[in-house]
């Protein structure tokens, strides 16, 4: 027997099991994190049923059931073992002051799902859960009762949403445009002043146009106010589960649903609508509600700018190192150094970007080209250009390494063949080597983009903000505003999760943002892996 045991240990089976457990742990961690984000993120769009709890003290609670847990010891030391409590999202923040409520299971007398309750998504104060009492138009009751009110409400919501769209367009395009021109005029006048021609005819003309602009601005603001006034024309009086009434201008409503009355297809449709809304809308309520469009746009924009910067330089450097430089100790050392830069922490690049790009380069540009705007910095503060360049610098080693790998995989015979047929080195590079190495270049670029997409730390120093007033691209010349600050999915997560006043209410949005970010990053990585495999297959030695 002891002999068998010794043999069993000597066989190492035990060790193999520990190794297997390690793999299992890694897999469980990946799966767990992915599942956690998927469940929370995808569940966000689903119109959840509204439960009405009738409590033993006669009050009623209406809301979405979030989770149920065993009451921990620390919360109620006196309570008997094993009792549970449920967490309800009760909404109605303006009435209750909080969005969530814990309720002991023991206090719940019965649970129902009344089909007539509405979930109202509002522009302020979060969701409202309750019933419709009446709908008022211009101060008079237009419809009363839950069902009639519901029917009367639908066209009103459609109307205010159209009004909101108009107002937003007016605000953004027309008034924004006038503002932009006003600022241009102000800077032009200041420039003339700096040049010592502040009193000339040119300046007077500018002043005149500025006054005209200001008049137009006033007109448009009045128009906007008229539009906004129309939003408050209609109102709906709602009542919560206990009958507390709340008068809500219809202009406050984004959309209203009766989730308990919806069938699966309705819900799927609502799911799609919600999904689209998150991707295309502006954020509301300190980023905790509404959409993430500006962050998504900023991320894509920044990554595009970064690719434009990183691709040519990375490829040039790789071609130089592999094809042109004489292979020797210097090139070998340079290669090692470049490789290792990929391992330097991203925050270090952020520090460099802030010091070099923002303060040194940006500050100089401001002094030379934008002196009229000083002391307000133009390029001398963080912006999308500097963030992109910082990330480009951070990811250029990735592109160099991958391109070099791609070049190394191109069989020697190809080069020799091309040269033997009379091509110059440049021609052989462009016609033969580059096409063969293209998958490598693309792999590098995709890996660089994937790394840049998920990186946040350097951006925090070089131009990302929690709420950007304008997108980096708009209708004003020169259309692409590289000096502007921007929003980013990763920073959005950090900001919502850690700097938001109401973290609990922000959590669903954080999960959604995380889901979108992770989907983008993983898709990019998988395509890089696929490209790499494709490349390996193509240049397998046997194929030569």
């Amino acid at each position, binding site marked *: 027997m002891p002999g068998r045991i010794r043999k069993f240990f000597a066989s190492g089976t035990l060790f193999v099991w520990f190794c297997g457990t390690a793999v299992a742990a890694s897999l469980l961690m990946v799966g767990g994190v992915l599942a956690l984000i998927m469940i929370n993120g995808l569940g966000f769009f689903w119109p959840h049923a509204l439960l009405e709890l009738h409590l033993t003290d006669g009050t009623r609670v209406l809301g979405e059931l979030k989770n149920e847990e065993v009451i921990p010891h620390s919360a109620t030391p006196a309570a008997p073992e094993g009792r549970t409590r449920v967490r309800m999202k009760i909404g109605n923040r303006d009435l209750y002051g909080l969005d969530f409520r814990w309720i002991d299971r023991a206090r719940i007398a019965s649970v129902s799902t009344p089909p007539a309750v509405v979930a109202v998504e509002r522009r302020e104060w979060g969701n409202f859960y309750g019933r419709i009492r009446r709908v008022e138009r211009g101060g008079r009751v237009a419809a009363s009762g839950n069902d009639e009110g519901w029917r009367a409400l639908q066209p009103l919501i459609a109307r205010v949403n159209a009004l909101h769209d108009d107002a937003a367009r007016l605000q953004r395009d027309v008034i924004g445009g006038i503002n932009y021109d006003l600022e241009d005029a102000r800077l032009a006048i200041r420039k003339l002043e700096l040049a010592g021609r502040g009193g000339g005819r040119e300046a007077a003309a500018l002043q005149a146009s500025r006054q005209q602009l200001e008049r137009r601005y006033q007109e448009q603001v009045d128009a906007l106010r008229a539009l906004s006034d129309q939003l408050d024309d209609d109102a709906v009086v709602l009542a919560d589960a206990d009958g507390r009434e709340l008068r809500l201008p219809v202009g406050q409503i984004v959309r209203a649903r009766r989730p308990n009355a919806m069938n699966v297809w309705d819900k799927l449709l609502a799911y799609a609508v919600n999904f689209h809304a998150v991707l295309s809308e502006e954020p509301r309520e300190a980023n905790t509600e509404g959409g993430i469009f500006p962050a998504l746009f900023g991320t894509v924009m920044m990554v595009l700018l970064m690719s434009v910067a990183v691709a040519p330089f990375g490829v040039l450097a790789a071609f*130089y190192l592999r094809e042109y430089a004489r292979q020797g100790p210097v090139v070998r050392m340079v290669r090692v150094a470049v490789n290792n830069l990929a391992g330097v922490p991203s925050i270090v690049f952020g520090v460099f970007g802030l010091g070099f790009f923002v303060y040194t380069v940006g500050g100089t540009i401001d002094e030379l080209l934008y002196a009229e705007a000083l002391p307000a910095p133009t390029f001398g503060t963080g912006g999308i250009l500097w963030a992109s360049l910082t990330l480009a610098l951070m990811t250029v080693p990735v592109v160099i390494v991958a391109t070099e790998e791609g070049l190394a995989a191109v069989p020697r015979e190809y080069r020799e063949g091309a040269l033997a047929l009379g091509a110059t080195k440049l021609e052989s590079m462009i016609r033969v080597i580059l096409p063969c190495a293209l998958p490598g270049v693309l792999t590098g670029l995709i890996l660089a983009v994937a790394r840049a997409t998920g990186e946040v730390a350097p951006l925090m120093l070089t131009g990302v903000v929690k709420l950007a007033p304008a997108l980096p691209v708009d209708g004003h010349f020169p259309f692409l505003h590289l000096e502007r600050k921007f929003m980013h999915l990763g920073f959005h997560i*950090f900001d919502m999760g850690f700097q938001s006043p109401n973290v609990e209410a922000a959590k669903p949005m954080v999960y959604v943002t995380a889901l979108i970010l992770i989907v983008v*990053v993983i898709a990019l990585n998988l395509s890089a892996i696929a490209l790499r495999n494709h490349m390996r297959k193509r240049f397998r030695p046997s194929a030569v």
Partner: protein
Amino acid sequence: MRGASGAARRWMNHGATGVITVGGWATIVSVLGIFVYLLMETAPLFEAASWSKAASVDVDAGERDGVHPRHVGVGIDDSMTVGHVLRRGDVAFYALPSGDRIRPDAVPVFAPGRITAVARSPAGAHRYGLGTVDGRVIPLRVRYRVTFGENGRNVTPVVTAGEPVAAVPAAGASVSTAGAAVPTAGASVSAAGAAVPAVGAAMSAAGAAVPAAGAVARLAFLDGDDGTTVAALTASGRLFLTKVEETESLLTGERARDVRRVEITGARVGTLSALLLDGAGDTLVGGTADGRLLHWDIREAQRPRLMGTYDAGAPVTALAYLIGDRSLVVGARDGTVAVWLSMTDPGAGGDPRLQKVRDFAPHTGAVTAVSPSLRDKGFLTADAAGGVAVHYSTSHRTLFTIPGDGAPVLAAMLAPKTDGAVVFRDDGRLAVFDVENDHPEVTLSSLFMPVLYEGYDVPKAMWQSTGGSDAFEPKFGLWPLMFGTLKGTMYAMLLAAPIAVLGAIYTAMFMRPAVRAVIKPVVETMAAFPTVILGFLAGLWLAPLLETIFPAVVAVFLVLPPVVVSACVGWHYLPSRFNLPSGTVTELVACMVVLGGTVWVCVQGNQQIEAWLFDSNYRQWMLSTFGLEYDQRNALVIAFAMGMAVIPVIFSISEDALSNVPRHLIAGSLALGATPWQTLTKLVMVSASPGVFSALMIGLGRVVGETMIVLMATGNTPLLEMNLLNGFRTLSANIAVEMPEAPQGGTLYRLLFLAGLMLFVFTFLVNTVADVVRQRLRVRYGQF
């Protein structure tokens, strides 16, 4: 290119070669230039301070009488464009650097010879008290009004004099019955009266008649916002403390003046040679001609109380508090300069005590003036030989010394922005110096060694870069941040390294290729998780979860090894028809079931486990048993989250190293009869260990610099405890937290660059080591 002539093609070829070479090198140089730039931004921290003479004004020109009063005040405005000299009760302003006299509209003048002492108030930049021959003190304020006009910045000096304070009883100094305000007019007065002959001599030199015994000989003066405090030592050696409180009646708007005067008596009072009040009017410090420091509590105006007497080593000639009133600079006749700290015993409570903590480079002559900086813990000292030195207390540095030419310095001031100094010497000249002194608070030793900060009684390594007020002493100790970095790295690696390496061994050695082709990319996908997501999950999901199921987590670590052992044994002794070969999906699934089941059971039994292991309350238990506090965001959370980030890195590289061990070696080993286990330990691990090592190094490099996870899931408090259950602050998170608020070019800004440089150098070295090891490994495999 098609159809181009041979010459054009050649030309283009050459051109392209040039472009690629230049572009390639430009890219490489700019990438490597990061290091150079970081170094350039950091270097000024360690540059020595420097000075240069900016102007010299002959103050006596035109009114030279060859005799200089010894009671002088000098000052300079923020922008160093106007300086002033206060003597004989007259304030003279000079434009700098030209030296032209500026004559403001109204300057109060007091009869020459009546002023017998000048003291600068610790509150405000240019507030003086002028002690007169008849025992009064005249408050004088100099302000520089700044206006912006046609030709830029204009500085206009304004002088106002306040109502004189009777600092010495009017009845005559020699009369001991000084009224009710002097409850204990001591008998020691007459005995000590003769002990200040030097004062009398100075007075006569100033051209006055032999001063009355009631003349102010030494003066400490405080012109605060809610009142004036004066400590005056008369020519006859009596010390009077006067507090004037001005109150405005809310109803009538009438200003009421409450004057309280008391005589301070004591054995050494007559020998006082320097006096100092703090900025709040709470304490009075006196230095004596026999080398003692006397420390009074004067909060109760009627009852000054001597808190302590200390041996200063040499006759005290000059005293000053640094901003914040906790550090006392003591200058002595033998030229020594020392900083004393006011300390409060935490246990005993009671009075603060003074303790000498730092000696600075001594002067060649007696210290005649000390001028504290208005914005940091720097100060200027000047001596009787004309020498001037600037020191910094926290970093214990003497920044520079300006040699003198023999003429004693009568008064000196460090410019309000510490970028200059004005010095008035006995030769009647006002000298102005420019000072280049951007980072006085930094030395290598203050960065990395414990420093005795104000308010502490032992030297401490601390990081606390900003405080609420100007008087805050910044604490730039990088050690707590380095410690935090090491702590996070250590715990993360302790968790990640075994999982990653064991997993790599299993994947490379025991797994079927078909399974491996799936598993490896899945684990590598983990490497692509943006760390901000891991950080958010760690901070918002894992940290609260761990807080509730901490006992279960402890139990998992305790229970898992025996469970795995028994599962393995059980699997081994299954009837052979179930006994599948190693490396299959089934075995992996079995492992997952064992692991997942253990975790599940422990989490379900969390309350029972807490009851068994931790007496039903793990926080209480940890605190009473080990003295450990449990923070929600702690190193354990970080270990899991950073483990997530780094496991795939280590896993992937070590798996590559292991599976690159030449197949024929393994086949040979197995063919010779070695078991797979023997093959692994004796052959594969031995030859692949450098690869595994380099994987660990690269993982280490990644953990050290990780920012977002640490930023989001630790409390970011710079603690110095190795405790697994509380937070820390790392170098990288510190950069992310403080960089946005750090003013460009300031000390904090450069220190954050230094932190960045340290991370850069560390990770670069670690990665280079890993790279070299891997290169050698590749060469070795090539030999088989």
